[in-house]
């Protein structure tokens, strides 16, 4: 070791050279950003004129854009926005982790690409990265999927939107229960957070509206993307004779393919996974970002902004507002199940069906809602869910 230390000494000339090189690099890098910034702020008119008044919209995804999951749903929505609204140019970056990396991506989209609207789609981007950048660039609009915006607390140029996808999960549960003679359903879940628990509960309530004895076995994998565990969970459910499996993980691809191989029926999530399970795919709860993004895109082009108050800061909706939808029924689905599913969709859209309707108990026997109580879909109480309803086999902690 001592031998190494001695021979690793740098000569003065090497040190000087190194210092010069780093400072030169630092200077050019600084100049680089300086150059990129000046046309967007100083000579903005010239740059805009050349680009024929195109509005640049940036989309950032936490994973790959074609993962059959969360990111694909957003990327499809972004593609629809560009296709349907003239005058919008899309810049995208995929697989951006929820770290300072996303701040750098947002900064370069604003400063180099001249983006005026950003959609950083992953949940964990919001705090602190979006908030920090929003303070720094008050004329850029930030839209975040997650419904975290708080009036008065967060900057004016931040908006949030989220869909009540559990409505679609309820309908998927109805279809699943029709198709499962034994009423044994399975749910591969990532983490016990309110959104996941709500999906599990709504799926179960949907199933039990058809077959009061139906149960949902939950297996937590502990992470959003854990392919081996997801496959293991699906296999052990198949071993236990579970008949329909659905999931809430980042990419349902592994669950769908494994279940199909085991001859178990599946219900999708996030996006349409029917190509992965051509025989057993029943239906699925999908995000429908295309309509929302197209609508927002038209408002951007018309000059509306969050800051001026033309666009509401919080956008939420369910099946009726086209925030989510169901996959087309697979070939295995019986006519009876289709009718049941369609009826549930109609009842939810018209508002006559409230999913969280008393009496409702948790699976540990505690009462959540008494007979005359009900929590409508937009009730904020539902976003703090920390229990499983009766019929779910599993525990939150």
């Amino acid at each position, binding site marked *: *070791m001592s*031998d*190494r230390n001695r*021979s*690793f000494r740098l000569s003065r000339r090497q040190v000087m050279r190194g210092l010069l090189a780093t400072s030169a690099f630092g200077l050019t890098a600084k100049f680089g950003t300086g150059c990129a910034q000046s046309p967007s702020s100083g000579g903005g008119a010239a740059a805009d004129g050349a680009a024929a008044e195109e509005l640049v919209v940036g989309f950032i995804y936490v*994973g*790959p854009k*074609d*993962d*059959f999951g969360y990111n*694909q749903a957003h990327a499809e929505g972004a593609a629809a926005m560009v296709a349907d609204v003239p005058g919008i140019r899309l810049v995208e970056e*995929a*697989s951006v982790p929820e770290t300072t990396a996303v701040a750098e991506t947002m900064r370069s989209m604003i400063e180099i690409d001249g983006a005026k609207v950003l959609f950083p789609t992953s949940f964990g981007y919001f705090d602190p990265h979006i908030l920090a950048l929003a303070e720094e660039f008050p004329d850029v609009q930030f839209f975040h999927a997650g419904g975290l915006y708080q009036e008065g607390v967060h900057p004016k140029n931040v908006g949030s939107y989220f869909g009540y996808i559990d409505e679609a999960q309820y309908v998927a549960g109805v279809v699943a229960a029709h198709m499962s003679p034994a009423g*044994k359903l399975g749910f591969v879940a990532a983490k016990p957070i309110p959104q996941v628990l709500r999906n599990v509960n709504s799926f179960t309530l949907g199933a039990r509206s058809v077959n009061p004895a139906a149960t949902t*076995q*939950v*297996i*937590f*994998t*502990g*992470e959003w*993307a*854990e*392919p*081996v*565990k*997801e*496959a*293991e*969970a699906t*296999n*052990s*459910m*198949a*071993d*236990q*004779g579970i*008949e329909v499996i659905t999931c809430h993980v980042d*990419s349902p*691809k*592994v669950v769908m*393919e*494994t279940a199909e*191989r*085991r*001859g*178990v*029926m599946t219900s999708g999530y996030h996006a349409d996974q029917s*190509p*992965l399970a051509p025989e057993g795919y029943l239906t699925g709860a999908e995000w429908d970002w295309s309509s929302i993004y197209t609508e927002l895109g038209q408002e951007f082009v018309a000059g509306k902004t969050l800051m001026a108050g033309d666009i509401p800061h919080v956008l939420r909706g369910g099946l009726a507002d086209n925030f989510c939808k169901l996959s087309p029924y697979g070939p295995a689905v019986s006519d009876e199940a289709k009718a049941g599913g369609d009826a549930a969709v109609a009842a939810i859209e018209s508002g006559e069906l409230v999913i969280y309707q008393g009496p409702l108990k948790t699976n540990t026997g505690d009462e959540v809602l008494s007979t005359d109580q009900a929590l409508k879909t937009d009730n904020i109480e539902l976003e703090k869910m920390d229990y499983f309803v009766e019929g779910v*086999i*599993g*525990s939150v*902690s």
Partner: protein
Amino acid sequence: MAAGALGWWGVPLGILAGTLRGSVPFLLVSLGECLTEKSGKINLGLEGTLLFGAMSAYAISYLSSGIVGPTLAPWLGVLAAGVAGMVLGAIHGWLSQQPRVNDVAVGIAMIIFGGGLANFFGKPFIQPQAPQLPTIPIGGWSSLDPVQSALQISPLFLLGVAIVPLMSWFFKSTRWGLYVRAVGDSPDAALAMGISIFWVRMASIVGGSFLAGIGGASLSLFYPGVWTERISSGQGLMAVALVIFARWQPWQCLWASLLFGGAQALGPAFQSVGIDSYYYLFNAAPYILTLVIMIITCSPQRTLAGAPGALGKDS
């Protein structure tokens, strides 16, 4: 769907099946690392090799299925994964043997490099479905569907198991095995014997990376059978730790890999029969096992029995 619930029998069956399915990458990577470390160098980069191998196998299997047909394509993928591993191994072998270069540091760089390369080239292959390797059913004697599907053995598992006695014999009774051991135990003596330390280590690292690349192929073409950027989830690193646990013995690598493969199935198997408390603990079982092994086997007072003498030393 025909078979009913297995109930409690599902737990041992799940673990057995998980062992047969999940231990393949552990087995191949640990055998590869065993060969590498016997020559006195550590290759931590096998995690990156695993990812790059998984990506190459999936990509080649998908791209070539139109040309050579879906039966031959996955095998071409396996070969491609091995070759891809060898390329990364050659880089590691050359870099880590430069003067004053630390092999652990190069290994960490190779994890990032291999992973980054795999993600970069793997983008277009996340969505398509590649033809998978065939499996060998040995559960035909049972009428139960879960038993039959649990006993689907991958040919890569058999390959790994076949390599174990071969490698053991190679180290013990062949001249080349002696060269590898000599270089690993006492480079000075090997040099005096007239053996090129550089080329023996290079060959060991490249050979080890070949096996690790095939381990990656088993991830993307057998189980779980998809290509995603997070497919390896640290299995390459665990396999490196496992070699220490196995005391650089190929036979013990086999048992250790089976143990780790089975530990992965613990969490899901227990939850599926309703034992749902402590699932984080069960899911963490392989990692806890690694940690325990490291604590038990490491001591500042003595070197491990069976450790190659020149391992982790400058030369």
